[in-house]
């Protein structure tokens, strides 16, 4: 197990280097001159040249690449073109709001999704299933920005119970995490249901019932654990995806997170910020996948790591 972990962690480095190379190339292929954009709409050419020099964009591409890689290895991603602040500071400021928003969205949506999915599978094709799936389909189909605006209109504007924007207190987390988690809850419910329905037809479930176990024990102890494997995989993917920062939800609720940072950065061709954010997203995905793989072992001890 420990050897497996070390091996996986060692595998991290080459993946990240490949991502770094790809990101660097893609970013520099984007049309548009960052110096011109950073200098602003009414800057004369002398100013643009000053800005270009200041940003190190007057150097050759290979030279810029070497500077980027050697900096990245030391954890130095340079300065943002847009704000001229350290990229690491920019990202650190935005990472935690996105992380906690993702965490709370996942927390409620996984709980609710699992519950709805389980209920739907156990009472398959009867009314609890139908009602649950109506919610699930609505959750998937209703676009996040519309849901966000509706929730804001009801709970902030009309009722005045909750603040509409900001990330200062726990109250600020409610509306955005409801919005962000709705689709995830729906996906989790669908996934749990289909995985559960399959498991409930397995021989060992019939055996468990045959030996006289009560239905709750059969469902929770025997079926749920096995049904969880694909669900956990999906959970990991969703978590990684949400950590990238939901652009829509962050825009609607003015959330100071990663999604908006990345959009602003792409708009302004802020190379250092784009590169560092994408590297961070890749790292997050790899780490989450690793955690998911390890979780398999806890859920189903028959899975072995080699």
């Amino acid at each position, binding site marked *: 197990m420990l050897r497996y972990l070390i091996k996986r962690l060692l595998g991290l480095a080459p993946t990240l280097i490949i991502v770094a190379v790809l990101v660097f190339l893609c970013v520099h292929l*984007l*049309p*548009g*001159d960052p110096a*011109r*954009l*950073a*200098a*602003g*709409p*009414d*800057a*004369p*050419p*002398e*100013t643009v040249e*000053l*800005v270009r*020099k*200041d940003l190190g964009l007057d150097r050759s591409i290979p030279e810029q690449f070497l500077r980027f890689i050697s900096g990245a290895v030391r954890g130095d991603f340079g300065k943002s073109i*847009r*704000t*001229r*602040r350290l990229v690491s500071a920019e990202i650190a*400021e*935005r990472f*935690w*709001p996105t*992380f*906690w928003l993702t965490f*709370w969205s996942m927390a409620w949506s996984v709980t609710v999704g699992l519950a709805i999915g389980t209920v739907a599978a156990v009472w398959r094709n009867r009314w609890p299933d139908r009602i649950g799936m109506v919610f699930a389909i609505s959750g998937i189909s209703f676009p996040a920005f519309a849901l966000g*605006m509706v929730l*804001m*209109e009801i709970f*902030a*504007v009309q009722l*005045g*119970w*909750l*603040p*509409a*924007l*900001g*990330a200062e207190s*726990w*109250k600020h*987390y*409610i509306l955005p995490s409801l919005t962000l988690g709705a689709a995830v809850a729906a996906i989790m419910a669908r996934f749990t249901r289909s995985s559960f329905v399959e498991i409930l037809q397995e021989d060992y479930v019939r055996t468990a019932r045959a030996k006289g176990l009560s239905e709750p024990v059969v469902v929770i102890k025997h079926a749920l654990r096995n049904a969880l494997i694909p669900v956990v995989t999906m959970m990991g993917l969703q978590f990684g995806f949400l950590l990238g920062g939901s652009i829509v939800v962050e*825009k*609607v*609720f*003015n*959330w*100071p997170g990663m999604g*908006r*940072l990345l959009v*602003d950065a792409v*708009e*302004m*061709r802020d190379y250092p910020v784009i590169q560092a954010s994408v590297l961070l997203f890749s790292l997050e995905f790899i780490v989450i996948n690793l955690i998911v793989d390890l979780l398999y072992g806890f859920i189903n001890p028959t899975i072995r790591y080699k």
Partner: protein
Amino acid sequence: MVKSELMPKKLRFTAARIAISFALVSPAVAKDVVMAVDSTFTTMDPYDANDTLSQAVAKSFYEGLFGFDKDMNVINVLSEGYDVSADGLVYTVKLRMGVKFHDGTDFKADAVKASLDRATNPENKLRRYALFSNIDQTGVVDDYTVRFTLKKPFSAFINVLAHPAAVMISPVAIAKYGKDLRDHPVGTGPFKFIEWRQTDYLKVEKFGGYWKPGYPKVDGIVWKPVVDNNTRTAILQTGEAHFAFRMPPEQIALLKTKPGLEVITGPSLSQRYLSMNVRQKPFDNPKVRAAVNYAINKEALAKVAFAGYAVPSDGVIPAKMEFFQKMGPWPYDVAKAKQLLAEAGYPNGFETELWSAYNHSTAQKAIQFLQQQLNQVGIKVKLTALEAGQRVEKVESAPNPDTAPVRMYYTGWSSSTGEADWAIRPLLAGDSAPPKLFNTAYYRNENVDRAIAGALNTRDPAEKARYYKEVQEQVWKDAPWAFLVTENLLYVRNRKLSGVSVMPDGNFHFEEMELKE
């Protein structure tokens, strides 16, 4: 990092989350004024800012020697007047006495010198370098007198000193913070800088030692960048913001029905036009350009794309600009447009491309309307709304004027100095073509170029007015643009808040800001 300590608190509140529907948001203690604006600030160093918004916010803590009043007239701020030498090269400015910086330093001539020497030194690589590059030297005459020596005469020099970039910074702070000055602004303004959390807010609080007695009248301001239009509308209604700028025209009807809110509209310096590349067929023919102007119903454009919050352009520069010459608006006459096209040899029209410098929804509506209007006279245009990077690549960086791909180009301009020279020269002077500046029509007329230079070099207002009249008449006649509309400013204010307004150039005026209980 700050958010991490939220965790234990949040755990405790998990139970409370369920019961949330019964919770009430405690009304914010309304001592600070919350100002919601539509995009994030880039820097708190006005000399390094290229956006009006960052400079507007910086006016909470910074002031210049001169400034603009609500009607864009130049007024004394930290100065008490100036003299110009006969050759127009030396400006002597008297400073206001008894002014202190937030760090306790006295405001004297050395502060002026330190601030402007920093701006004129190319080593500092400041984005507003070009604005001040005409200053040869800033000299201290005595504690309260400074002398600016220019490289060449420049009649609009006081407007440069009144520009929101030209602020006075504490010389102690310049020495102490160096490159980090952007995060530690120390000025003479009515408010002290407290904290800036990039995406969240920027906070300032009342400066007790402000030189103007009785000011400011509020305890502090929270500047909040809120990028989403609907969200700005929502927080005005919830009371989370007292003021919001800019507001999209489509939300105005709803906000007008709210008794606690006041919708304000006024003229701006922001004009929209359609430039035509005069180096390329068919736009080399003045008749074609005139036909395009006749083909567009500007009244309807203002209604369709700007929900009525724009007025048809009646000249080359916005009507609120000094030296404006009224010429129009250009009449809408489809028959005349068709006749001119026929005379120019295009009886059945032609096909061309129309690019937009912006891809937001208002611009999309505008170019679709233009497409439909031009179609009526047989001009078939293919629309492309350029995203910022594409715009820079395809239009602003086009290296060779002869092969520049731009044809019809929907764009706009707002003179950041509030002054006619910067509204005309970058857009219409012969040598302002991209990549240098923004003459996207590639227009060149000797009379215009001579008059622009003449106006810059004279100090006689009457002569200057004559030059600008000549420029505007010639440009209107040659019509390198289709002159479209001047936008109206649109902002919303809580009725408890008074004394805040947006100036025609998009800067804020908030000296008299007051909040009723």
